[in-house]
C-alpha cells in the first residue's frame, strides 16, 4: 500500500483544469456538485461557456460577494450564486426539457463507479437503511449530449471506481463518454476503456493496476485523439 500512497497524480483543481480544456467554446454546460463545479474556474481564456443549473437558470455566474447573496438565487447544490447579464430564469419543466431534449452540450458529473461500457452509478451505494436521493442525475445522463465524469481513480479505501460492471445501482446505461481521474484521462469506447492521457509521473501499469477492467493503451502512433 505504500506504493499506492506515493501515487497521487493530479489534485482536485488540476483534474477540473484538465476537464475544462475539453469543453468547446460556446457550449451550454451543466456542472455537478463537488469537483465538477470547479471546472468553471479553469476555462481557457477566449472561450465563453454558458452554465445551466437545473433548478432554473441559464447563465449562472460565480458566488456573490459576501452579504450580496439572495436566498432566491441559488444553484442545484442550493448555494447562492449570481446571474450573468444575458441570463434567463425558467421553471422546472422547461429546465428539464433543456436537459432531456438534448439542448445541453456537456454535463460534468461525479461518480461512485463507471463501467467499461459507459454505465454510471453516482446516486446510491444501495446501503440498507440509507435514504435514497437521486435529484436530476438520471435526467442529465439520459439527455445531455456529452457526459464527462471527474472522479478520484479509487475510493478512499483504495477500491477501483472504474470497473467491468457497476455493483451500485445505476444512474444510466452506457452514458459516459470520458473520465478524468487523478491518474489519467480515459475514454469509453465500444472496445472498452481507452487510455487517452496519463497524469505526470503515472505509468500505464499503475493505472491498469487500479482499474478493475481492461484498459486499452494509448496507440503507439499516438492515434487521432
Amino acid at each position, binding site marked *: 500500500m505504500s506504493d499506492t500512497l506515493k501515487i497521487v497524480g493530479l489534485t482536485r483543481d488540476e483534474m477540473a483544469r484538465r476537464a475544462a480544456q475539453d469543453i468547446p467554446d460556446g457550449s451550454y454546460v451543466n456542472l455537478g456538485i463537488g469537483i465538477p463545479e470547479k471546472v468553471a474556474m479553469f476555462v481557457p481564456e477566449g472561450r465563453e461557456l454558458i452554465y445551466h*443549473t*437545473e*433548478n*432554473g*437558470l441559464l447563465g449562472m455566474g460565480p458566488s456573490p460577494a459576501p452579504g450580496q447573496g*439572495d*436566498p*432566491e*438565487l*441559488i444553484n442545484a447544490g*442550493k448555494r447562492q450564486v449570481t*446571474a450573468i447579464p444575458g441570463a434567463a*430564469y*425558467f*421553471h*422546472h*419543466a422547461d*429546465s*428539464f426539457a433543456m*436537459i*432531456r431534449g438534448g439542448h445541453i452540450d456537456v454535463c460534468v458529473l461525479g461518480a461512485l463507479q463507471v463501467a467499461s461500457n459507459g*454505465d454510471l452509478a453516482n446516486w*446510491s451505494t444501495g446501503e440498507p*437503511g440509507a*435514504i*435514497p*436521493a*437521486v*435529484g*436530476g*442525475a*438520471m*435526467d442529465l445522463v*439520459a*439527455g445531455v449530449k456529452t457526459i464527462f465524469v471527474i472522479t478520484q481513480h479509487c475510493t478512499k479505501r483504495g477500491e477501483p471506481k472504474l470497473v467491468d460492471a457497476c455493483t451500485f*445501482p*445505476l*444512474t*444510466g*446505461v452506457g452514458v459516459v463518454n470520458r473520465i478524468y481521474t487523478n491518474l489519467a484521462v480515459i475514454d469509453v469506447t465500444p472496445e472498452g476503456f481507452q487510455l487517452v492521457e496519463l497524469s505526470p509521473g503515472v505509468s500505464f501499469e499503475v493505472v491498469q493496476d487500479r482499474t478493475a477492467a481492461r484498459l486499452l493503451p494509448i496507440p503507439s502512433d499516438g492515434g487521432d485523439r
Partner: protein
Amino acid sequence: MINKRVASAQEAVADIFDGATVMVGGFGEAGSPIELLHALIDHGATGLTVVNNNTGSGEVGLAALIKAGRVARMICSYPRSTNSTVFPEKYRAGVTALELVPQGTLAERIRAAGAGIPAFYTPTSVGTPLEEGKERRSFHGRDYVLEEALHADFALVRARAADRYGNVIYNKTARNFGPVMAMAARTTIVQVSEVVEPGAMDPEVVITPGLFVDRVVLVEDPAHESALVAEGMSYP
C-alpha cells in the same frame, strides 16, 4: 367581479382535508411557501401526501409539517439536504413513506397533469432501479419508460407578485416548480409579497396566467428558511 384574494394564509388553507395530496413549491428554500405551510400546520390536516423536490430543512416550513407527523407520504427527488434531519427520522420510524422520482420526471409528471396528458415516455431511469414496475417501450431504437401524470388536490406556491385575477410573476430561481404545480392542482394557493392592480404587470412577463390560480394571499415580508433555521426556530 373576479377577486382571488383571500384575507389570510389561515383562510387560504382552511379546506385542505385529511389525506389530501398537496404540492409544495420550492427547491430547497428558494420558493418555499413557509407562511402557507405554517398555516397548514395550525390548520391540522393530516395523512397528507406531499409533493416537493426536497423534504425541508431545520424544523420550519415543510420540515415542521413532517415533524408534526402530518405527512404520510413524500413524493420527491432529493430527500437529503443540509439540515434535513426531520424526514430521515420519520422515514425510518415508518411514519412517512417515500416515493423517489427523478427530478425532471417529477417536473414533467406535474406538468403533464396540468396539461391533460395522462402519461408520457421518458428516457430517464431506463435500466435503473427507478424503472422497476414501469412499462418500457422502444421508439426509433431507443428505450423509454412510461411515467404517469401527478395530480394534486392543492398546490402551495410562493411568488413575488400577483393581481386579483391570479396572474403571477416569480423571483429568480424561486420560480422552480411553482408554474407547473399551479397547473396540476385542483386548488392553487399562491402567497405573494406584493399584490398589484390588474394591468400593472406587463402581459408579456406574466409567468402563470390567472386561470391556474385560485387564491392569492399577501405575505408582505415572507421568511427565508435558512434565516429561521439559523435562528434555531422550531415551528410551532
